[in-house]
Structure formats: structure tokens, C-alpha cells
């Protein structure tokens, strides 16, 4: 509603590691914006430390990562660990990319809230976020 104070959920969206395939992350960023979220896109070649630092400065509630390079088993946990180190484990981590089903279970055990694999409708991601943050946006 224009004119009234709003506190939309803020989401930092990033590509960690060397992979530069940003088609998916950009499409998701647009969909999240259209759904009313404030999306802070930190771009390519982020390190886990950079992503977490950005999330803290921006007071984001969520971090979304996109990884197509096969390095997800190293990089997702690294982000989770960095959140722990910065005492910010309340920030929710989710992601997408080229991630085999077997790895998803392992990642969830490591603290990743959800992984959306290729072919997931954008609405599914939005619905998941809405369920997690029902009072906001």
C-alpha cells in the first residue's frame, strides 16, 4: 500500500564461487521483486564471507545462493559456517542450481533450509518464502 510504512523481507541473492551462469539467479531476483521482496543482488564471484557480510549490513532475513559449478558441497556449508561465526544463524539460507538430489539431503542437514532444482516454478519459491515469513510482505 503506497504511503504506509512497510517492512518487506530483505533477501540477499548471490552467486558464490567462480561460476558465472547468472540466468537463473536473475530470473529468481525478478520474481522475488514482483512478489514484493527487497532483493539485494550482490552479483558474481562472491565468497561466503562477502555474502554474509552483505546480509548483515543490509539486515537481510534470507540468503539465496545459485551454484552451477559442482562446488555446492563446499560453498553452501561455508556460508552456513560463516553465519555461525558472525552469530547470525537466524538468517535463512536457500539455493538453487546444478545440485543432485542426493546432495540436497546432506545440505539440509548442514543447515540449508531448502534447495530448488532446475525446473522449479518460480511461484513455488515465492510460496515457500511467504510461508516462512507470513507477517511480512
Amino acid at each position, binding site marked *: 500500500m503506497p504511503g504506509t510504512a512497510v517492512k518487506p523481507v530483505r533477501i540477499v541473492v548471490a552467486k558464490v564461487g*567462480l561460476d*558465472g551462469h547468472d540466468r537463473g539467479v536473475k*530470473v529468481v531476483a525478478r520474481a522475488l521483486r514482483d512478489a514484493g521482496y527487497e532483493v539485494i543482488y550482490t552479483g*558474481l564471484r562472491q565468497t561466503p564471507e562477502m555474502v554474509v557480510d552483505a546480509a548483515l549490513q543490509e539486515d537481510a532475513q534470507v540468503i539465496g545462493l545459485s551454484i552451477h559449478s559442482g562446488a555446492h558441497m563446499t560453498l553452501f556449508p561455508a556460508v552456513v559456517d560463516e553465519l555461525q561465526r558472525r552469530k547470525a544463524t537466524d538468517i535463512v539460507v536457500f539455493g538453487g542450481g546444478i545440485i543432485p538430489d542426493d546432495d540436497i539431503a546432506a545440505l539440509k542437514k548442514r543447515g540449508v533450509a531448502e534447495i530448488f532444482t532446475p*525446473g522449479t516454478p518460480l511461484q513455488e519459491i515465492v510460496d515457500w518464502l511467504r510461508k516462512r515469513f507470513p507477517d511480512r510482505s
Partner: protein
Amino acid sequence: MKVRARNPKQAWLEDFESGPVRDDGIETSTISGIPLQPLYTKDDAPRREEELPGQFPYTRGIHPSGYRGRLWTMRQFSGFATAEETNRRYKYLLANGQTGLSVAFDMPTLMGQDSDAPTSRGEVGHCGVAIDSLADMETLFEGIPLGDITTSMTINSPAAILLCMYIAVAEKQGVAAAKLGGTLQNDILKEFIAQKEFIFPPAPSMRLVVDSIEYCAKEVPKWNTISISGYHIREAGSTAAQELAFTLADGMAYVDACLERGMHIDDFASRLSFFFDAHIDFFEEIAKFRAARRIWARWMRERYGAQQERSWKLRFHTQTAGVSLTAQQPELNIARTAIEALAAVLGGTQSLHTNAMDEVLALPTDRAARIALRTQQLLAYETGAANTIDPLGGSYFMEALTDEMERQAEAYFKRIDEIGGVIPAIEAGFFQREIADAAFRYQKELEDKRRIVVGVNDFTVDEEEPIEILRIDPRLESQQSERVREVRRKRDGARATNALNQLRKAAAGNDNLMPYILDAVRAYATEGEIMQAMIEVFGTYTEKAVV
């Protein structure tokens, strides 16, 4: 009573309009959004001079004999983990009938970093082979005579380095550089536009590309110095017309840069090659390939004044569209790949890579890689697709669509010109915006079910059967890191340091850098060290993201 005879076309139109219409809401335009008529007749095909294969402007093919003279090269892109394992896979593929090698490098190598660099953590060997120094390159081609095969190397920012490594390995095999044949992707402009594997800013990046073209024109004359790519642009979400236009525009930018260097067009133009996507919308792809040849030939002859025929002929490699593959019901990908490959063949590609069915999930297993190769062999030998040159030429539909592709490409060239050229357009975010918009549009169409991807937004199954996928041994990273450290220990340190210093000095000047890079490579300087020497002079580039 006289029955008024209907004009047949009129009759058909009336019958069509009064007949059934599917109400499933599916788009009848091409996947790129080009509206399609239900029927094309001779009224839609332009009256033009007859076009013939091997004759300007080569719409119907660059060789008069087509595949009757020579089949396309079956060149499967491959590489993973270590140089030894990749070497084994190459020997396997060559034994199974693959006719050229194509090297896939891992992310750290693509980004100019050694396996033991902190930013390589978790990335070594996953999407290609790890090459840190000449030592790894020697292992990669061990037992493979470089004088007898051709090799394509898919690498961009550090391309000059990898080419020098290849030349150095050949040296050790006793093969002269002048005998070497192959292709280097080396297309930095599309990195800024789509794949984002850039390191240096645009100007020094272009300098390196021109250096390599200039060097090869003299020393490695059979080498295709650049593979000007549309594949990555398409995979990033562009339409077919954008893929066509942006790729050819990049090509022209490289030609301009070489001419500015003082080269003569006929000295390098015939070694420029192209690389396109073969996507799933069948006819549009064939039209795209035909239009590409026609446009390039005209520009080379008429705008650039190239005199030699071989400068006018666009040669291209094709890869079937990775982005069309699904993780759901992945066996369907075999069918998709076959159809896409057929489009490439009917479009007259010079070489072809077919994707394996499991590539959405991981690098391909041996079995999946073999099926992909067999698909090409099936096309070549069972379907008759290779028996007639440009078999769809003359089809009203195909000719109309080819013309439409050409029109759309020319419209884009004008817009790029208005912005001031390819590099200003990159800096203005023009390409990136077009691509992001097209990608988003397509995604919306999928969500609205105006387009269907079988197994994903329709015809799904509840339980997907698990398929075996390739796993990279996680110990690989530490092994490879130890290898590169060993190379640094064992080499002649002074020689390497000296070579790097010379390179740094030359980078700050105007010399062609290839000989300096070659010296560094021979001295077993690592890829990361060579890149770092150049970064110190050129700096690095951060893009302004256009979402």
C-alpha cells in the same frame, strides 16, 4: 447452375478458419517469439536469385559438396577431474569413433587460477579438467599425437596461455606449430555479455585476442584462432535472433580490432570460426544457421572488402542446447538432443557436440557420453540427413524464416551501431538487458503454461527414477593442489621468474604477448602466475549487473 470456383489458397484459408482450433493455450510462435503462419506458400517465399551451396552468399552451405564430400566432425566436449582421467576418456572416445578432441576445463582453470588458490576451494575438477601448468597439459595429451588430430579448447580469458601450452606439448612431441589444427574459443566479448568468465577489462582483453590471432596467422596458420560464440548468449536466455545478431556483431568487433592492429582482412578472416546453439524449436534453428552464413558473407565481402572466398565463408561448430535438458525424466533428453542435432545437421554445421542425458545433474557418465556420440552416428548413417545438401532449401517456410532471421539481425546491428559499437553496448548493459528480459519472458510463458517442457510443467511423473550420475572424487582437489606445488618446487625457479618478469614488462608495452607467454609456459610457470602477472598490469573488471 455454375459453381463459383474458389482460388485454391482462398479455399484453404476458408477451410482452415472454419475448421477446428486447438484450445490448449499453447503458443504457436517460435520459442523466440517469432509469429508463425499456419502455412507458407510460394507467396511467402521471396523471389530471389537461385542460391547454391558453395556460392556466395552461401545460404545453402559453404561447400559445394556438403556432407557428401565430408561429414561434420563429431566433436564431443569433454573433460573432468585430472589430466590422467581425461586422457583416458579421450582415448576411449577416439577409439569409439570420435573424430576430434574438445577440451573442457574446470572453473579455476577457466578463471586463470591454480588449483591451490584459496578461491579454487571446492571447485577443482568439477566441470572440466584441472590444468595448472605445462606438466598437466603433457599428461592430458600423453599418447595422443597432436599432429594427427584436431583439438578444440574451450577457454576464454586465459586462452592465450592454454594455446601456448598446447604448442609447447606439440614441440615436445616433435610436431611443428605450423602443423597444428584446432580451435581456441578465445571469445572474450561474449564473456562480458553472457558467460561472465572475464578477468581483465575489455581493452586489454581484446588486445590479447588480437595478439593470438596475429601470432597464429604467422606461426600456427591452420589454427582457428577464435570461436565466436552464440551458444552462451543463447543459454543465458536470449532469443535465436539475438543469438545470431549478437554473435555476428561480436565477430565484426573482432574484425575491426584486427584491422586496427594493421592486419589485412584476408590474412586472418578465414580462421575466424563460430559456435552456435542448437535449441529445441527445430525450424527456427535451421533458419538461423542459414541466415548466419548469408549475413556474414555479405558483410565480409561488401563492408570489409575481403577479396578471398575463404574469408567470406562462415564455419561453425554447434552444441545442442544444454538449457533445454531437464532433470525430470532425463531419458527424454536423448530425444531432445537428437532433434536438436538434426537441426544442426540440416543447418550445415561443420562440427557438432551432442549433450548427454544426465548433464543437467552432473558431468556425463561413460554410458551417457557414448549414447550422445552414437546419436550423431545414427544421424549420419541411418537417417539419410547427410545425403542431400541443404535439404530444406526451397521450402517456402524455411526461406521465409531465414529472411526473417536476417531482418531481425540487421535491426539489431543498427541498434548496436547507434550505441556506438559492441563494447559501448556492453558497458551500457544493452545485451545483458535484452537477454535478461528474454529469459524472464520465457520463464513467465512456462509458468503460464503457454509453453510446455515435457516432464517439468506438464506430463510429469510422481516418482522420478534415480539415475546414476558422475561424482568427482573430493580428494582430487588436494591431490591436484599438491601436484602444482610440486611443479613449482621442481622447476628452474629463476627461469620461471625471469619469464614472468619479461611478460609483465611486455604487457605494459605494445608487443604481441604470445611469445612471452610461450616462454613462461615452457618454464613451467603456472597458469595462475601468468594470469597474475598480467592482472598486475591490466587490472580486473567488475561488471555492473543488469538484472
